């Protein structure tokens, strides 16, 4: 009997684990269907703890979309913490879904969404607990097809041995197409078993099936070539792009958790894609072109979403929300609708300009003005030219003056350390910027108690970006530059006490770097690190750099590759990159040209308001930029 709940066996264990509510399901808008009433069954996973995974928009959208089909069921599963993992192993309880508490191994498909590569070891835990062989090659017709998605799936090579397939790009239409292929294959009597299904999936072009490609290597460790090993399998797999977001107004019935989660709000994606062209930003490169959701659809989604959930916060999401062509009308319209209610609005935009402050003022009309966040990303003007973040220091100072002058008490600034061509001075310059921010803020607000928090992330070069060829800065140099910056802030007698500095050591970024730009050989290191206990690598209290170094040394012993080879080595144009057979639409020559422009400190405009610069996406994917203004207004809504 497949699909039978394990809850009766799980329940007696729950009193002895931390936060048991995360394992019981029962959220508002959760769906359970009769196992035998459907033709195709999906288990969907976000490979992190429930509190992080539940709010994930991608999983929620696919969950709702699939469950809307009468003959499909989708249930969710999340990573279990080590306390429950140990009890599940002791009591022989498999990885389960939180909806029906069904064994994940019983489903037809097991879809896993990766926002970050640091979730890879959690995939292995889930597979192992589910009783699904970790190596895809060892799976039989009785096991689910394991499908990876999310941004990290644009280079799934490090987990190629552990997954059966990957969806590159937008998931909405892809999961429905996969569902149709699985349904048809089952209806046909499962011809040629698992292999037959994978071949149907691969030849459809909807997914990438790593097992149908052979990779060969040169003596120096670089890839020689990647070749399909089956007839009919495409040489390159193109990304999926959903056009017209108004036709896909999800989530309509968002999950409302009982447990506390990291985002407690109704989120609506106001557009997808970004063409600002920040060279470090993988999301901005792989989600092109810009596709706006119309102001009227946004208004309807917010009204229905708030009414359906009871959430008190609405988030207007995108990669740069202030760039929506009608954002001012959206903000004013929603602020009018929810004026006098307890619903607050947030715009997680970090664009450095005064318009952004105006928007934030509008959205916080009656709320508290605590902090505003801006992301100059580079400390010096030279650095910002390299990364194509077109913000002058004067822009930044004007913007923060407006913010402090309008009653905002704290400004948070995001920067990166370890960017290509970066020098010690580029990082130390951040201290000077922060001092000017405080000085300006004190003048603009007339108060001394304003603050500026500087958050610094370690830069990790990502596939499908102009920096995909760059050498990642070693963690010792990152730590040295951050220490020098800290010393400069501490030394600042006038303003240093008003400046908060937040950063982590550079070591986790090196592991993320290997997992981001690695090839199939990295799989052995992942497996070894997991066998040595790696879990929840995105959590500093669980992450162990030494464990990863040891696992990499063991996995790569006797070969010409290493942890350094995958991270701190600069690549050249002739090198076959592990993800070259995965087509994000970006023209490789354009990316290389943009990389050369970066080194030459030359900037490129946004194609929404300047001529096309031939990144290659629209013609190769048959897509186009979809932006307003529509000229319409939010519907005359009434708050609930």
């Amino acid at each position, binding site marked *: 009997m497949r699909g039978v709940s394990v809850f009766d066996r799980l*329940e*007696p264990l*729950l009193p002895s684990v931390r936060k*048991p*509510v995360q394992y019981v399901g*029962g959220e508002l808008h959760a769906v359970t269907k009769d196992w035998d009433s459907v033709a195709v069954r999906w288990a969907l996973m976000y490979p992190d703890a429930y509190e992080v995974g539940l709010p994930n928009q991608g999983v929620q959208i696919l969950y709702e979309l699939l469950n809307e089909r009468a003959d499909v069921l989708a249930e969710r599963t999340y990573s279990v913490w080590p306390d429950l993992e140990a009890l599940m192993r002791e009591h022989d309880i498999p990885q389960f879904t939180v909806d029906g508490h069904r064994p994940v191994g019983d489903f037809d498909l097991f879809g896993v969404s990766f926002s970050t590569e640091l979730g890879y070891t959690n995939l292995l835990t889930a597979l192992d607990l589910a009783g699904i062989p970790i190596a895809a090659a060892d799976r039989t017709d009785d096991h689910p097809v394991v499908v990876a998605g999310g941004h990290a799936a644009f280079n799934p090579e490090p987990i190629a041995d552990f997954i059966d397939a990957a969806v590159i790009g937008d998931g909405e239409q892809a999961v429905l197409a996969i569902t149709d292929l699985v349904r048809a294959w089952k209806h046909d009597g499962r011809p040629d078993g698992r292999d037959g299904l994978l071949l149907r999936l691969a030849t459809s072009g909807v997914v990438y099936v790593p097992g149908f490609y052979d990779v060969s290597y040169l003596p120096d460790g670089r890839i020689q070539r990647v070749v399909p090993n089956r007839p009919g399998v495409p040489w390159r797999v193109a990304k999926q792009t959903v056009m017209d977001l108004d036709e896909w107004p999800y989530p309509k019935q968002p999950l409302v958790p009982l447990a*506390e989660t990291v985002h407690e709000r109704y989120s609506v994606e106001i557009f997808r894609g970004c063409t600002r062209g920040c060279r470090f930003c993988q999301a901005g490169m792989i989600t092109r072109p810009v596709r706006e959701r119309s102001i009227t659809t946004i208004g309807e989604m917010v009204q229905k979403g708030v009414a359906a959930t*009871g*959430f008190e916060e609405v988030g207007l999401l995108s990669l740069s929300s202030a760039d929506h062509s009608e954002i001012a009308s959206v903000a004013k319209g929603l602020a009018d609708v929810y004026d006098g209610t307890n619903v607050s609005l947030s715009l997680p935009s970090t664009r450095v300009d005064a318009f952004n402050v105006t928007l934030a003022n509008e959205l916080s009309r009656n709320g508290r003005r605590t902090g505003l966040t801006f992301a100059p990303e580079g400390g010096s003007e030279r650095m910002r030219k390299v990364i194509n973040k077109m913000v002058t220091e004067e822009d930044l100072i004007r913007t923060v003056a407006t913010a402090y002058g309008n*009653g905002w008490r704290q400004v948070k600034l995001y920067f990166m350390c370890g960017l290509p061509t970066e020098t010690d001075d580029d990082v130390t310059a951040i201290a000077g910027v922060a001092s000017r921010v405080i000085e300006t803020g004190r003048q603009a607000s007339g108060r001394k108690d304003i603050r500026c928090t500087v958050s610094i992330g370690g830069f990790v070069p990502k596939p499908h970006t102009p920096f995909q060829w760059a050498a990642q800065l070693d963690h010792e140099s990152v730590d040295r530059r951050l220490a020098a910056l800290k010393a400069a802030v501490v030394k600042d007698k006038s303003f240093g006490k008003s400046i908060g500095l937040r950063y982590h050591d550079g070591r986790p970024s090196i592991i993320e770097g290997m997992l981001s730009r690695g090839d199939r050989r990295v799989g052995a290191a992942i497996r070894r690190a997991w066998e040595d206990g790696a879990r929840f690598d995105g959590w500093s209290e669980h992450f162990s750099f030494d464990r990863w170094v040891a696992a990499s040394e063991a996995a790569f012993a006797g070969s010409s590759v290493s942890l350094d080879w995958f991270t701190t080595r600069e690549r050249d144009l002739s090198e076959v990159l592990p993800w070259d057979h995965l087509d994000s639409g970006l023209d490789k020559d354009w990316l290389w040209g943009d990389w050369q422009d970066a080194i030459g400190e030359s900037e490129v405009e946004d194609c929404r308001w300047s001529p096309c610069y031939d990144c290659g996406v629209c013609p190769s994917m048959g897509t186009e930029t979809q932006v307003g203004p529509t000229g319409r207004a939010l519907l005359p809504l009434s708050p609930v």
Partner: protein
Amino acid sequence: MARQPEGPPPPPVVQRLRVRYTKRGRLRFISHRDFARAFERALHRSGVPIAFSAGFSPHPKVSYAGAAPTGAASEAEYLEIGLSQEREPAWVRDALDAALPDGLDIVEVVAAEPGGPALADRIEASTWRIELPGVSVAEGAGALTALLALDEAPVERSTKDGTRTVDARAAIEAAWVVEEASCATLEVVVRHLTPAVRPDDVVTALRRAAGLSTPVAPVATRLAQGLLDAAPPQTARHLVDPLG
């Protein structure tokens, strides 16, 4: 000058309602904080005209009587809400029940009598049903007899602030065995003391008193809360309904 919220202050409370609700099935694993969040969202969805406090972060007027611990089920939890417009209690019961997930069920809503005793003053004890799967009815009865024969039953419990010791025996007003059950099932009337004696403290005391082993995690369900019935003393099997 610090900014102040613009506009008039929120409307005052015109009606106080007392609510009895449950924590059933798998939702027994939600914590009190989880419940409070779920309840406040359900208020928004239900359209019940809840009153709010003033200020930049207005809070709905909800006050909770002592909540059952995480993992314990309950048939008798209580809270009080303040409304900005009057509503029929029966309508509020139905609206809130429809807005809450199954397992968090609204059983009863009554209007608080103006000038009457506070909800907290109408509750001094709980009746708990404690099921001990894997323990026979006879074993359970023996352990209970042994516990009741003690003068005191100190039990240590680790809390945020370190280990605390509570006297489980002192809090027990009455206890009996449910005869027709598939496993040992006790019902225990526990007086609310500070620090509180929780059902798992009672189970620990039972284990100690009789060398009892509980192979499977026990399940506790709060059946009732209220004031102890004045007569007859020491055999109090009945608590006075706080909404009665």
